[in-house]
């Protein structure tokens, strides 16, 4: 087990270099001049452009720039924006908010999705099953920017139940509606995945054995059926945290949450490549570590899986 974890951690190294290189190249390929509009209405003075170009190695070919960048990054230096702000500071400010939003989303998704999935999986073709089927279809079909603006307008503007925008502290109570919006599509997935898994496993031989042993119904379902059915769902939920953080850009925009989505968007439009890469590098690491965690969780849930 220890060796497996070590091997997986070592595998992170090439993935880390590969993804950063790719992102670096992509940001570099975006057209535009980083100094356009930097100095107000007039063009930037040549001396300034020359100074900045040298400081940021902008005349070198991009692979070389990448090498310079990685050299700094490996010493823990995320670099600075063209405005001279530390990028690590931006990351430290934006990430907690996005993480909070994604966690709220994940919790909502797990509670509602699992409950709906278990109930409908046990009673297939009933009223509730059809209700959930239709509502998951809705959730899957409506894009986040529609459901986000809709809920913001109805709950925030019309009925004034919530504030239409989230304050800069991003309290958990404020994040419930944005979290719901962010997780709505995944929630539908979780509900359907759980339903299928429960339905499939409820016909299995070991459930029949549990009944034949004279165990009460709640134990048959709550212990024997649930443990097996939740394995695929739990792994989905684990990997989904990374997706939720990466996908928060639209939701953050709608509810003006100060998270990484907004920072990335701003950095891309101003061609702040170092900022984009810095934020995405952390995101990639979160994603990779969550994946590792899920694989380990998988082995803990299913004793037939052993990593050697």
């Amino acid at each position: 087990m220890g060796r497996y974890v070590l091997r997986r951690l070592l595998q992170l190294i090439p993935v880390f270099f590969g993804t950063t290189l790719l992102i670096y190249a992509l940001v570099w390929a975006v057209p535009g001049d980083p100094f356009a509009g930097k100095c107000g209405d007039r063009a930037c003075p040549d001396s300034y452009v020359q100074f900045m170009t040298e400081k940021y190695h902008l005349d070198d070919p991009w692979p070389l720039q990448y090498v310079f960048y990685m050299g700094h990054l490996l010493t823990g230096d995320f670099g600075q924006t063209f405005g001279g702000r530390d990028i690590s500071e931006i990351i430290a400010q934006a990430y907690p908010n996005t993480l909070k939003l994604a966690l709220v989303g994940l919790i909502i998704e797990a509670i509602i999705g699992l409950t709906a999935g278990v109930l409908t999986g046990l009673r297939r073709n009933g009223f509730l099953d059809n209700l959930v089927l239709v509502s998951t279809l809705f959730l899957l079909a409506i894009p986040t920017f529609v459901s986000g603006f809709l809920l913001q307008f109805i709950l925030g503007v019309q009925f004034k139940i919530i504030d239409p925008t989230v304050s800069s502290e991003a309290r958990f109570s404020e994040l419930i509606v944005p979290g719901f919006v962010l997780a709505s599509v995944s929630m539908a997935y979780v509900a359907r995945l759980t339903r299928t898994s429960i339905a499939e496993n409820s016909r299995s031989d070991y459930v029949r054995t549990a009944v034949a042993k004279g165990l009460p119904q709640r134990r048959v379902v709550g212990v024997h059926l649930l443990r097996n059915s939740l394995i695929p769902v739990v792994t989905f939920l684990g990997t989904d945290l990374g997706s939720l953080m990466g996908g928060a850009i639209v939701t953050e925009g709608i509810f003006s949450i100060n998270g990484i989505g907004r920072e990335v968007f701003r950095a891309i439009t101003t061609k702040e490549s170092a900022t984009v890469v810095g934020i995405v590098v952390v995101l990639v690491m979160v994603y990779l570590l969550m994946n590792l965690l899920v694989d380990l969780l998988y082995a803990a849930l299913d004793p037939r899986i052993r990593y050697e």
Partner: protein
Amino acid sequence: MSNVYVADKPSAAREGRPSGRLLEVEDLRVEFRTRDGVAKVINGVTYHVDAGETLAVLGESGSGKSVTAQTIMGILDTPPGFVTGGEIRFHGKDMLTMSAEERRRIRGEGIAMVFQDALSALNPVFTVGFQIAEQFRVRRGMSRRDAKKRAAEMLDQVKIPNAKQRVNEYPHQFSGGMRQRVMIAMSLALDPEVLIADEPTTALDVTVQAQIMDLLGELQRERQMGLILITHDLGVVADVADRIAVMYAGRIVEEAGVYELYAKPAHPYTIGLLESIPRIDEKGQQLRTIRGLPPSLLRIPTGCPFHPRCPMAQPVCAEKVPPLLQLGSTRASACHFAEELVKRD
């Protein structure tokens, strides 16, 4: 039939049988409502088992022997399966009219079941110890530790070596034979009065089959249980069974003591089954088979369901369903010509 070895073992059933029957199935009828129509899977099955007695239920796949067992256990899948008639009496009380809670209490303690494929019948994500111990915890209110200890004792009783260590292992860590022993230990945990073993050795190889059958026979005698042994393998039943009920198309076609049945079968289907056992003195010759296939349960033939395949069939067989008639005090057959078959030498 002198080539078939029949153990002349003393039947425990004859000593101290309680007055009432332990488990009786009477005129049980079950149908499966499928998209293709209604399949009449069980068409009036009647059999019983007493304490200390082994009844073997014999039949091809699809004859309804497993469905009967599932109906007794109350684990029939509904839908598609529906009980449409008959009674299942345990200590004289009809289980089909009991409340769900009453029936649940009988499971495991009154009647327990051993399934064919222990690998899929055991829960893959819990240790075997947990799966045995949970019965002591849920049904006997034992502490976690005591229940675990009892579970290890159960494994020891079914002769699993190193029971104390193996109690913490998962089903996939056991070999096929050992897994079936775990299954047996689990079914016996609450000391049931009746044990139903549904093809307990079919998934095992031959040497292990014999060990498991011996174990079952031994445990049955020790505990004076009623044992219903469901099988399609005539070789398996000879040593352990007291009586045999032969099923065909959801009916009992013949019931007799094991010796009587092997010596002088009273139904053409039983004759066919016995003749289809490979024999060492006929090596090199073609195996004898029963011609044709078992009938589709959606369209059971009129009259005697076996008549299209029967070498003795007469016009009457296609018209009248032969009832299961007593032939003397110990045996019964559902053939129009049963008496002639018995008299024949």
